[in-house]
């Protein structure tokens, strides 16, 4: 599947860079990501990982270089329904329960066939917390609710910014399992992380950012 196929890559960056106040935040970057692939974005603190992910999600403008989506020039409308971003801020309303938060997300993105909010929450280790307002959850429990969203909504490309932070060991296993399942179903993912990621499904691609 990764072989030089006639299928264009899902996402392709050519000499991509981003500028803040005319200074490059990350240098010209070349990479491509096919369906069924996982890429790790690596780099020291401040090297621009978060910035890259926000750019790929469509929140920031491309500074220079080119970005292609399934072979076409990248456009927000084309990939909005197929991309999910998990950022430093989780995007959960603290006053709503975990279940209600998932319902809102499903109202916008639709839901995967066969997936239900309660089922996803149970799978992620939050059974019994469905009706608790998110504000009462600890840092790691909140992160789990955000991960549950990934599993509930349909999407091809996942952009995960430090998904392992704040999670205990069981939580880290869970993220790995989620990623494996997603990749196996033909999805793609871009993940930033500092810790050693022990991903089971083969060595992931690596994208290095230089500070």
């Amino acid at each position, binding site marked *: 599947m990764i072989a030089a196929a006639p299928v264009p890559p899902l996402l392709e960056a050519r000499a991509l860079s981003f500028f803040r106040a005319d200074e490059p935040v990350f240098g010209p970057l070349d990479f491509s990501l096919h369906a069924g692939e996982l890429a790790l974005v690596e780099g020291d603190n401040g090297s621009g990982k978060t910035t890259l992910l926000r750019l790929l999600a469509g929140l920031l403008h491309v500074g220079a270089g080119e970005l292609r989506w399934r072979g076409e020039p990248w456009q927000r409308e084309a990939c909005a329904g197929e991309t999910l971003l998990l950022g430093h801020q989780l995007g959960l309303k603290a006053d*709503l329960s975990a279940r209600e938060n998932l319902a809102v997300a499903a109202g916008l993105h639709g839901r995967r066939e066969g997936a239900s909010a309660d089922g996803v929450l149970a799978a992620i280790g939050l059974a019994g917390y469905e009706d608790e307002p998110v504000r009462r959850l600890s840092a790691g429990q909140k992160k789990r609710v955000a991960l549950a969203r990934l599993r509930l909504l349909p999407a091809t490309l996942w952009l995960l910014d430090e998904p392992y932070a704040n999670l205990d060991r069981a939580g880290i296993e869970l993220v790995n399992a989620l990623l494996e399942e997603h990749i196996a179903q033909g999805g793609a993912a871009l993940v930033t992380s500092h810790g050693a990621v022990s991903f089971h499904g083969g060595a992931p691609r690596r994208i290095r950012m230089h500070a």
Partner: protein
Amino acid sequence: MSAAPLSRACAAVLRRDLTLAWRRRGDIAMPVLYALIVVTLFPFALGPEDALLQRIASGVVLVTVLLAMLLALDGLFRGDLEDGSLEQLMLAPQPLAPLLGMKILAHWLTTALPLIVIAPLLAGMLHLPLAVQPVLLLALLLATPLLSLLGAVLVALTAGTRRSGMLLALMLLPLCVPVVIFAAGAVAAAQQGLPWIAPLAWLGAALAMAVVLAPLACAAALRIALDA
């Protein structure tokens, strides 16, 4: 890969915001209390002459309601911005404008509507003649959604900055002035027994235009404000 249809997405956003408002129903009462308080302060500051108060009643009520709305407007996107849900909304597969329209509608329902409901009480406390009150209500019913819509665009523009509250007040004022002039004009005309339809018709026309254009402008402003 089936994004939800627009109508379902709009319903989800509206329901979400109304649920959130209901969870914090104490907050709904706050603009109302604020208006009540401001109106209470005036007799203390001006002295309690009934004739004087009656003369300025409609003006004070109008300004007060606008100030209370202005305060509440500040929070239109703040919460969503802080916890990242605004980003998630911007990444939704549906066009952003109608979703924001729903947010504005929910905001108007939860802040301006309660104010309109107690406006007669405020007016009564300042001895506004009973006959003028329907006109005041009509003016508020047209002026407040107009301000909500215009305000939302400005709130969106200031979303990326920290100093939003006051900046917002500053930017909203030039927009407030014509609205206040027309609304106060209608009430004053009614108080003097003159025809008061014309100024309200102008407000209605402006409202119709804003309903169409403001959500689009709001969406554009938001994308600009968060692009950094």
